[in-house]
């Protein structure tokens, strides 16, 4: 019964969606771009692609969009992640009675050593990714995620090696604050939040893109530490 109702409801939805994309509504040649119908309008993407480099000095237009044009979203996005970290801690920390935890067997020496060896490399890779976010694919989030995967590796491979959540807390707070402060400096300097107030530098070099790399670094740190603290919390080592 439940399946039947569900299926019929989904069928209606699917029908609606498919009608919405079918040729009758779409036009024959515009199939590759949903936005074709708005062609006569100045298109965001085109504009960013054509002007982004000169406006922000960052080679990675996506980075430019993420940090500058839609930087406010990113601020929110970071906040969401922050909320997830904090919320997770809230949910898990109010546990009244700790379930009896099966003490995991420590990992074998090979795994342990391998993980310890890989951990700094992974951190380095992550840092590379977010430092070069304005030039190459990737950025703060991706880099941060890579960094966090390092912590995950430590959790998985180096059982018993605790993750210190205080460090995460400090890092995420400070990097988050850095993001906000940078944004506010833009407001103070140019009357607009997240303004790219630093010199743009020469395009396609590391020191280009104004505040974008700096913010990306902050984001990378923040994402890394937040995901790290999520891992720490989920692994049950959190306070």
């Amino acid at each position: 019964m439940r399946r039947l109702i569900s299926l019929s409801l989904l069928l209606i939805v699917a029908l609606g969606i498919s009608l919405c994309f079918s040729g009758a509504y779409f036009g024959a040649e515009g199939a590759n771009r949903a936005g074709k119908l708005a062609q006569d309008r100045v298109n965001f993407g085109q504009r960013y692609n054509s002007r982004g480099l000169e406006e922000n000095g960052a080679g990675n237009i996506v980075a430019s969009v993420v940090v500058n044009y839609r930087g406010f979203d990113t601020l929110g996005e970071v906040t969401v992640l922050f909320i997830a970290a904090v919320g997770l801690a809230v949910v898990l920390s109010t546990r009244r009675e700790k379930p009896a935890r099966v003490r995991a067997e420590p990992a074998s020496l090979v795994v342990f050593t391998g993980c310890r060896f890989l951990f700094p490399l992974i951190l380095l890779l992550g840092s590379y990714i977010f430092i070069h976010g304005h030039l190459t694919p990737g950025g703060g989030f991706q880099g941060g995620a890579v960094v966090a995967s390092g912590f995950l590796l430590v959790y998985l491979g180096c059982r018993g090696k605790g993750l210190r959540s205080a460090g995460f807390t400090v890092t995420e707070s400070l990097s988050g604050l850095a993001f906000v402060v940078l944004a506010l400096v833009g407001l103070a300097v140019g009357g607009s939040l997240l303004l790219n107030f630093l010199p743009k530098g020469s395009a396609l070099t590391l020191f280009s893109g104004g505040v974008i790399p700096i913010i990306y670094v902050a984001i990378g740190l923040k994402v890394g530490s937040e995901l790290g603290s999520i891992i720490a919390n989920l692994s049950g080592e959190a306070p």
Partner: protein
Amino acid sequence: MVSPILLIAVPLGLAFITPLLGLARKGAPRYVPAVAMLFNLLVSVSLLPDALRAPIVVRTAGWAPPFSIHLVAGPLGLLLSSLIALIGLLVAVYGMDYIREGATTRYHVLSILILVGATGVVLTGDVFNLFVFFEILCISSYALVAYWGDSASVEAGAKYLIQGAIGSSFVLIGIGLLYGAFGALSMADIAANVSSVSSFRLFVSLAFLITGFGVEAAVFPLNAWLPDAHSSAPSSISAILSGIAIKAGIYAVARVVYTIYGAQSILPFVALLSVATLLIGEMCAFSQNDIKRLLAYSSIGQMGLIVFGLAMASATGVSAALFVVISHALAKALLFLASGYMILRTGSREVSSLNGMGTRMPLTSLCFTVGAFSLVGLPPFVGFASKFMIVRAALETADTFFVVLLAIALIGTVIEGAYFLRIVQGLYFKPAPQQAREETRKEPPLSALVPVGVLAALIVAVGLYPGLVERALGAAANDLLDRDSYVQNVMGD
């Protein structure tokens, strides 16, 4: 002149450093939300007069509106953000002493963020940004609902999360369709071009957006999470959820329907839904035994009233709805806050455990009564003025459809009167349960009495002088209804 963007940035920054403060001094974080919201309140109120003249459009990253995210601090946005800051401030003060167990620092962080989310929702002028702030609001409320960590709150949190996640996926689909159609994300930009796209496609996106945002707005039949979540959350959070969060949801729906789509023709359906919401809410509340659940269902009912007002699509209707938003926020926050300590003292959420509170916690009970009367719509409290405006607006439409719906809606308010006034009777005229503990004979601490008292005073004050908000209401309604000027304000000429 301060920028409205500080309303978001400053509390956000404060939220980010709160954990650090918590590490430094154990007691410090509990003051942060109050500080943040005080700041917001001052800024919003100081900006409001300007916004009434012309909406303040704030660009980010220095680019002109369509090309970057922008905030539109219009009368509506600032009115609501003032309300958010006000309720937030009072709840924050209340939370100082109320929240003693659990991860208190994180509670305070989240309580700022939930308010930031709501503020962002009402101020933003970008549809995707709306989604982001919406998620900030939702996700922090998922976590806060589960704050107590008992089975009910965790269950409520999980269910809320599932429904909310579905909702946000829908929103995202809607936004994707919109972007596909217009290649734009600025609401004004989209609004300016809505007529250029075939309507069915748009309608599908509209349906997704309405459904998605509607989940948070607690419109029937999307409101199943609400009673669970509102009743299981800490009372301070219930106050925020009921007073603010669902209002943010309804704001989002209204923005989408009015400003982006200008879809007046679906409003009769919305009106039907609203009346259904109202009736369902009131009917469910009627036989509730759990005071917080009762209040939660009553919130659903009031949401129905708000949506009903909005669905009239007339200036009076919308301003009436906004007035209900205000009156309900004040009254419901008051009720949740007042009942919070009653529940804490008696250790029971049964309605009957409130019996005899009139003598044991006289001030709290008095304020509770004021709130209840206001919700029922009795003068001289603000609920009356708002109900009055709703009825007036409905009758001014001179549309039989709305008059009939109004009659049904009024039945809902009668039911509401029945259960609220029964509680009030219990407060004053029923003997306290035999096993009432001795410590129940104590007023809550000052940090709780002050917000409750302030809310009660506001209810009376605005009830007596609706002129305090009336002008802003009119402008806000215009803000919502007048698409052309909205577009013009944002996009320049």
